[in-house]
């Protein structure tokens, strides 16, 4: 199975090589070689034990050419955050669309560009940072992303620079003649004490059948602070493979929020390396799955240096025949003393056909640490239900309200009101009997 898929993508690579980017050819070829070497993961790989990608590999997705398949103004309106003043980079089916985008003025301090339209000086920088810490050997899909790399976003903030408004990267997929795959690549590089907020939105339209295979690399230099959001609302037939790698230097801070609502088969890998004293990472996640959805979140935090801390909260609500996987690994390396690492994963199972497989892992090689993790699987609290019912709220509404409150534990950590409100709205929409509770949430 995996060999047939490798052959398919090798042929696909050949087909596209005529109009390849050229300037990163060496990296693309070495990634292709890595793919040939490792193949695609199967359930025999421990990290993919619960996620079978055979259905994805069977599809023989192809890359679609740049076309003018536009997204209407109305559709854009539903995608944009109302009341959120932000820059936007819009990609349609994997290709940058400048007409729909609005970028900050690029200069010495701030440089934001799409990869396909990058000038020579930006290209040089991209080549410098590409795969500096992330690895094509992570899994076959990461290699595939680099091998087919031709578009995405490059964000660079120089020392002490601050990007004044959030950057909203919008990846839209709509219906095409054949099912297709896109490989967006984002590089976010923050200099010392730089600050930025980046929102990645993945949106599927028209119930299109496609695959998004995305890689995001983040480097936060000393004292930098990045707030990163990933809002995944792919279509019901879509596959989404996401790999985020962050390398955090001394005293820098990364706040990651990952919200997964859409997609048929979704896999998110978030690897963070705390490489300098005082670095902190906060990982926030929410997954809501129904029908036949399969959502897999793998996170890994490497405490390489002393005095680093991490804080992780992932929550999931599962209905229908949905299946979710959570794997949170915290590694405290040798001599990394004075570590504070906390992790929790809570799951609500709403249906007997739903399944959750959770595995919070700790690997600790130092002694002066405070590490805890917890995982729960359960139902709504009967006492809380009783409380609401005794106040004349019917059972269905009460259940919906409590489910929302459960999910909101993650959403309320989002600091931007427009994003928070939009998500609350979306989450309510995903809950059973949504209409009943909307009046409570005004």
């Amino acid at each position, binding site marked *: 199975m995996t060999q047939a898929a490798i052959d398919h993508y090798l042929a696909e690579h050949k087909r596209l090589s005529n109009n390849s980017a050229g300037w990163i050819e060496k990296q693309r070829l070495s990634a292709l070689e890595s793919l040939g070497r490792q193949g695609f993961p199967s359930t025999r790989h421990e990290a993919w034990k619960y996620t079978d990608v055979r259905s994805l590999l069977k599809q023989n997705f192809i890359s679609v050419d740049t076309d003018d398949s536009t997204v209407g103004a109305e559709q854009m309106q539903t995608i944009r955050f109302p009341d959120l003043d932000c820059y936007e980079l819009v990609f349609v089916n994997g290709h940058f669309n400048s007409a729909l985008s609005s970028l900050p003025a690029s200069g010495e301090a701030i440089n934001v560009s799409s990869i396909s339209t990058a000038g020579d000086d930006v290209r040089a920088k991209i080549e410098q940072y590409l795969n500096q810490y992330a690895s094509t050997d992570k899994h076959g899909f990461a290699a595939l992303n680099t091998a087919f790399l031709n578009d995405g976003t490059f964000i660079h903030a120089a020392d002490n620079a601050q990007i004044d408004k959030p950057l909203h990267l919008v990846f839209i997929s709509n219906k095409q003649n054949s099912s297709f795959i896109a490989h967006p690549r984002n590089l976010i590089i923050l200099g010392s004490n730089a600050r930025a907020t980046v929102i990645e939105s993945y949106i599927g339209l028209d119930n299109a059948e496609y695959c998004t295979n995305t890689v995001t690399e983040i480097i936060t230099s000393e004292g930098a602070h990045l707030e990163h959001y990933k809002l995944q609302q792919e279509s019901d037939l879509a596959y989404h493979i996401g790999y985020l790698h962050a390398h955090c230097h001394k005293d820098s801070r990364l706040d990651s929020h990952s919200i997964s609502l859409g997609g048929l088969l979704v896999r998110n890998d978030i690897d963070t390396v705390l490489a300098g004293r005082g670095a902190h990472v906060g990982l926030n996640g929410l997954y809501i799955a129904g029908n036949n959805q399969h959502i897999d979140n793998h996170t890994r935090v490497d405490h390489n240096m002393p005095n680093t801390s991490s804080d992780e909260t992932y929550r999931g609500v599962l209905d229908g025949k949905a299946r979710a996987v959570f794997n949170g690994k915290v590694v405290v390396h040798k001599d990394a003393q004075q570590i504070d690492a906390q992790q929790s994963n809570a799951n609500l199972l709403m249906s*007997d056909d739903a399944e959750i497989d*959770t*595995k919070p892992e700790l690997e600790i090689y130092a002694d002066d*640490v405070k*590490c805890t993790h917890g*995982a*729960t699987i359960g139902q709504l609290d009967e006492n809380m239900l009783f409380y609401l019912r005794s106040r004349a709220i019917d059972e269905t509404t009460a259940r919906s309200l409590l489910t929302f409150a459960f999910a909101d534990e993650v959403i309320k950590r989002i600091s931007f009101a427009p994003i928070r409100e939009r998500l609350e709205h979306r989450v309510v929409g995903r809950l059973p009997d949504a209409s009943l509770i909307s009046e409570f949430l005004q």
Partner: protein
Amino acid sequence: MSTHAEDVESLVDKEYEHGFVTDIDSDTIEPGLNEEVISFISKKKNEPAWMLDYRLKAYRQWLKMEEPLWAHVDYEPIDYQSISYYSAPKSKDDMPKSLDEVDPKLLETYEKLGIPLHEQKMLAGVAVDAVFDSVSVATTFKSKLADAGVIFCSFSEAVQEHPELVQKYLGSVVPIADNYFSALNAAVFTDGSFCYIPKGVRCPMELSTYFRINASNTGQFERTLIVADEGSHVSYLEGCTAPMRDENQLHAAVVELIALDDAEIKYSTVQNWYPGDENGKGGIYNFVTKRGDCRGRNSKISWTQVETGSAITWKYPSSLLRGDNSVGEFYSVAVTNNYQQADTGTKMIHIGKNTSSTIISKGISARFAQNAYRGLVKISKGADNARNYTQCDSLLMGDKCGAHTFPYIEAKNSSAQVEHEATTSKIGDDQLFYCRQRGVSEEDAVNMIVNGFCKDVFKELPMEFAVEAQKLLGVTLEGAVG
């Protein structure tokens, strides 16, 4: 913490207390494993044809299998052809009728261990089926058990006298092809214990065996089978220490427990095989498959283990909760010091309705040791109202050791309630300070804190084991505090 480090140096040099070799002329075959060896073992034990078939089937299966490498442990590959698979004390032909007839050297060995048989017989009221190397040489209290209808004998005896029971239950919990080491065990096991508690009987005494590896170069392959028939109750103790050795020794035991309707089995272990010296040289490889099957309604299986020995421990006492309302429990203290490695935990497979399980695991890691908890809690689709509570805590002593947690939780039923909690920390400076301030010496304070850390598990042990366990903990950890 520098003062602690000095304590480590001064106190950790304690040699393994139980290191001695009893010189008994063993009836050992040449190292190597093939079908002939298996036939030899079977013939030597005068086994019926079905037993030999079972062994050969297991052996052929084993040949097809690969040694598992997923555990968080590191060791030199084992050469299975360099192990001798049979060894028995010479005096086996005329089995002793009472302790007086037992080889005095054997008795001496037990006395050195602090568990002399005659003392046990009088004081504890415990029937001991002593397994010295591979053949059972002394069994006590047989008549008293026989009065109650309880069958408690060596495995070889059970094959001869109760073949119908053995045939019915052997391999029904741990099938031949279950894993690499259990397949090996099924092919070459030489002896072990068999226990059957008839319907409605509450076993009148705690049953216990002491395993001991003695002859050099001999792998120990024990097989234990305990069947608790409807409404019965049994508490079984297993404890072991081993003499000091240089080569690594393989120990691949299989334990099968079966609890029918309303039956209860309590299985307690204190494991203190030789852990190797302070440089990680020598020591036992303890690769054990232990599994209990709560086959009947309202049945209960409770595992309690104190693991202080072995160079490498690879052990997951598990419970299959098949009967409705069945209960599984796992209480574990695993201590690793110097270069010991442990990868241990449990599996709780919820299949019946209203099943519940509790897992309390305490891992202590000192100096250069690696200690991992690996567990699985699985709620099957039909397991309505399943309940699990898991707590695994790790205590680190010294900045070179490691503590790891790999819990797998799989839930397929919406009425499942599963909680997992894990913490990792070292002994708090403030805790130590509190004790020191009140005039408690640092060593006593550490002992006190460690014992408190393990209390939840120790209190599950039968009285006579709890004492031994605390002693063992002291011996294993004394001075390893920093």
